[in-house]
């Protein structure tokens, strides 16, 4: 494979190279990609300390205009989704079996489980049973469940509140016969 170096002798490109600065001064070659670029106007870095993030956040990278090369339409689309799930409140959808439409609530408004339960009970006009670690919710046909980051359906109340808020993607209030099967893996 022809090596780049051999070409140098024939074409003294360095001598004819046009650059800023007086002749005779050597300019230190700066590797490209250094972040002296204008930052993308609306792509400001999201808060590193978002609600209950467990993984260590990477240091804020300097924003390069037009990088990565993703169409603005697509970028805006992802950004909208991110805004919905981080930053300005953590709105998640709540569905209840048999209800004609879904609702949305902001999890960041609540500090612990009982507050969330009361709000749900008010919203959907039902009451959830009593929670125990061993048996889940007893005494009601309704059971609050949520979908976590892995796509699995979990019982609300098992994990610490912060962990719940950071991993909850949506809520579903199950009712009726399905509730009985909870212990056998829904």
């Amino acid at each position: 494979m022809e090596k780049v170096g051999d070409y140098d002798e024939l074409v003294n490109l360095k001598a004819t190279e046009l650059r800023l600065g007086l002749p005779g001064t050597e300019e230190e070659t700066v590797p490209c990609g250094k972040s002296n670029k204008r930052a993308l106007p609306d792509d400001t870095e999201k808060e590193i300390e978002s609600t209950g993030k467990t993984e260590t956040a990477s240091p804020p990278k300097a924003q390069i205009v037009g990088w990565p090369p993703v169409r603005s339409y697509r970028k805006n689309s992802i950004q909208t989704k991110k805004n919905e799930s981080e930053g300005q409140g953590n709105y998640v959808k709540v569905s209840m079996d048999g209800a004609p439409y879904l609702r949305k609530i902001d999890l960041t408004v609540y500090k612990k489980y009982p507050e969330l339960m009361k709000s749900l009970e008010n919203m959907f006009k039902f009451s959830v049973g009593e929670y125990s670690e061993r048996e889940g919710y007893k005494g009601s046909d309704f059971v609050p469940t949520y979908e976590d980051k892995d796509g699995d359906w979990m019982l609300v109340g098992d994990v610490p509140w912060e962990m719940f808020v950071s991993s909850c993607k949506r809520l579903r209030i199950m009712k009726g016969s399905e509730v009985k099967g909870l212990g056998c893996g829904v």
Partner: protein
Amino acid sequence: MNYFPDEVIEHVFDFVTSHKDRNAISLVCKSWYKIERYSRQRVFIGNCYATNPERLLRRFPCLKSLTLKGKPHFADFNLVPHEWGGFVQPWIEALARSRVGLEELRLKRMVVTDESLELLSRSFVNFKSLVLVSCEGFTTDGLASIAANCRHLRDLDLQENEIEDHRGQWLSCFPDTCTTLVTLNFACLEGETNLVALERLVARSPNLKSLKLNRAVPLDALARLMACAPQIVDLGVGSYENDPDSESYLKLKAAIKKCTSLRSLSGFLEAAPHCLSAFHPICHNLTSLNLSYAAEIHGSHLIKLIQHCKKLQRLWILDSIGDKGLEVVASTCKELQELRVFPSDLLGGGNTAVTEEGLVAISAGCPKLHSILYFCQQMTNAALVTVAKNCPNFIRFRLCILEPNKPDHVTSQPLDEGFGAIVKACKSLRRLSLSGLLTDQVFLYIGMYANQLEMLSIAFAGDTDKGMLYVLNGCKKMKKLEIRDSPFGDTALLADVSKYETMRSLWMSSCEVTLSGCKRLAEKAPWLNVEIINESDNNRMEQNGHEGRQKVDKLYLYRTVVGTRMDAPPFVWIL
């Protein structure tokens, strides 16, 4: 052929449909030029400023279908200011005045206004097909005029446009007599949709083959729509959430089973993944699957869906699929020809992403792969060498390593050898996008081996002007060269001015070209438009003491037969 009457020759020409071939035919002799131009119905103009409407109409008076492209490719990434140009209005005005029988208009990266759409809808009685890709400048009012006035409308295909949604009733503007729709794609509209009007429209369109819905169409509406359009071939799902036990979900499952012609699935803009199983019965027929906007579909639900899609030829997906997910694709989708893996986290979080392993797995499992767009966290030369060996048939190879200048993460070497292997093995390569740490060496390889290369995208690469020179000297078929943030300057730019006559365009931003270099180029090549896009005041460039040596922020040059354009905004300086 001199012995045949013109009508016979024309009849033979009817079988020649590709633009390249028709252009070649027209160069054979004067007589063929004449016959060809009168019989040409479909015209493709890759750069709307390379010619003008008057010349178009003079040469092709029997035009029926026009494709126009406006802004340069890097406009997609916010590198070109909005008011740069690419206005379709003068084209539509000229076409309308000439009374040509326009039936089809396809626009990409152009500025379209409601006024243009209204004029279009009123001027051409037989207008059938409107395809807008990455356009902007119009609202749903413009769509309303198209719906209302185009009596024989067949296709209304809106792909990734920025459309101001006035929440109007554009869908109800389709008259009851309109029954000819074949394609209806409004997935990019953000606002509410009149569901009743939509359902009625679909119900009276027996030829409807492609339907792509926006976010505002919920699952129960989808169920009803699919029930009255079982002939659908291409479906874009809008919102996809509901309780899996609800009646509408059961209706949907039944409707899906009847859609035996369904071959292409996309959308899922808002999705509840556990409902995906409703589509499993038809997955074995799918040849195209686009889940690149379905951020909520990942993990086991995604894998289960893909495992049913054994006939897939085209897959667009988010990198949340992971290397493991790509391995499933590799073992399931043996017919795969095109793969696009988009980043789901633009800030480079790095958690759920794909690496070189996913790419290697795909190349090993999918022998028919010829097009790839792959955003990833890291790459190695060894992986690229393996990929080149597994898939020597690449036509398009676009690799984007999210972090600029990132070397081979195992050896810390530049990725020259890896990309070199790709261009050496893939003799049919027409499009290439580079990323990662790259020196002049990779360009030497490209110049030597990439004989069929037509489009090359370079970012944060190379060391000296030699890099660019290797490419300009070596790639005889180069059409579009776009470079950003690379140390190429005037020497490379000016080395072979006649080369630009063989190319459609050259883009250079944040490189080392200077104003005097650009001026010299413009002097040598009056048949080129040399545009300097400077968002800071252009006049200041002149007044500065170091006038000639000032670096140009953005340079865009293109061959043209009509000279300087008159519609350039103040921040664009045409030399």
